[in-house]
């Protein structure tokens, strides 16, 4: 099996580098980068999505309802999948089967949440730019997606019997925590500003 220039621990090294990069970014250039992308939020406000979102309340409400359905589906798949890996729910089902069946629903729910989220962000761009909680949500969302597709799924593609049990439980716990944070911060944005 070919290995990359990083050796046999490529994925681990990449994960560590990403964590270090995020921490360094947070404590160094975060503020200046945020200031530099303010015009993007002005553009979002002036875009068609922004105009529809700010002037047509019913459209915003319908899109927000779809956004919440997407979040609910993500939450449901996470509870079913990670809850099964932790042995908390669906105990009569094979863990591997439950995990595999949630993949497609999770993918579509994520697409729904992201696409409706962009529309909603345009409608309230002038507000969310100044909300700390919005940036924490984006951080949690990015981390959650990288974790899901870069770590969790490749890990669970292996036969579950070949994975150390506490690694499975730790991964499932982290997954629940990340997506809980995404959902909670999303609702927090709704009640802020």
């Amino acid at each position: 099996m070919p290995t990359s220039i990083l050796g046999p621990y490529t994925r681990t090294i990449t994960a560590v580098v990403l964590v270090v990069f995020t921490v360094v970014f947070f404590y160094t250039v975060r503020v200046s980068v945020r200031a530099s992308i303010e015009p993007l939020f002005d553009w979002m406000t002036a875009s068609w999505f922004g105009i529809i979102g700010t002037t047509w309340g019913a459209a915003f409400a319908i899109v927000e309802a779809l956004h919440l359905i997407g979040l609910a589906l993500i939450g449901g798949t996470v509870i079913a999948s990670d809850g099964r890996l932790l042995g908390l729910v669906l105990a009569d089902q094979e863990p591997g089967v439950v995990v595999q069946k949630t993949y497609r629903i999770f993918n579509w729910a994520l697409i729904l949440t992201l696409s409706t989220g962009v529309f909603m962000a345009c409608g309230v761009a002038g507000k969310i730019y100044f909300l700390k909680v919005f940036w924490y949500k984006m951080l949690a969302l990015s981390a959650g997606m990288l974790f899901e597709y870069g770590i969790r799924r490749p890990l669970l593609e292996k036969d579950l019997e070949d994975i150390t049990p506490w690694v499975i439980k730790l991964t499932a716990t982290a997954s629940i925590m990340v997506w809980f944070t995404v959902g909670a911060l999303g609702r927090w944005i709704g009640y802020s500003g």
Partner: protein
Amino acid sequence: MNDENKAEAKLDDIQLAAVVSSSVFVVWFAVYWFFQIQAVRELFEFVRVNNF
């Protein structure tokens, strides 16, 4: 423990990456939500002391 068992006890790349990233998330989650809940507790205390 012989060499073969030692090799089996080692985590492979994806498992080690899962341990590293999951640990970071769990710690971050605990710290972040601790301070958020603490802020709400302080707000309640402020309201109680000032008789709002």
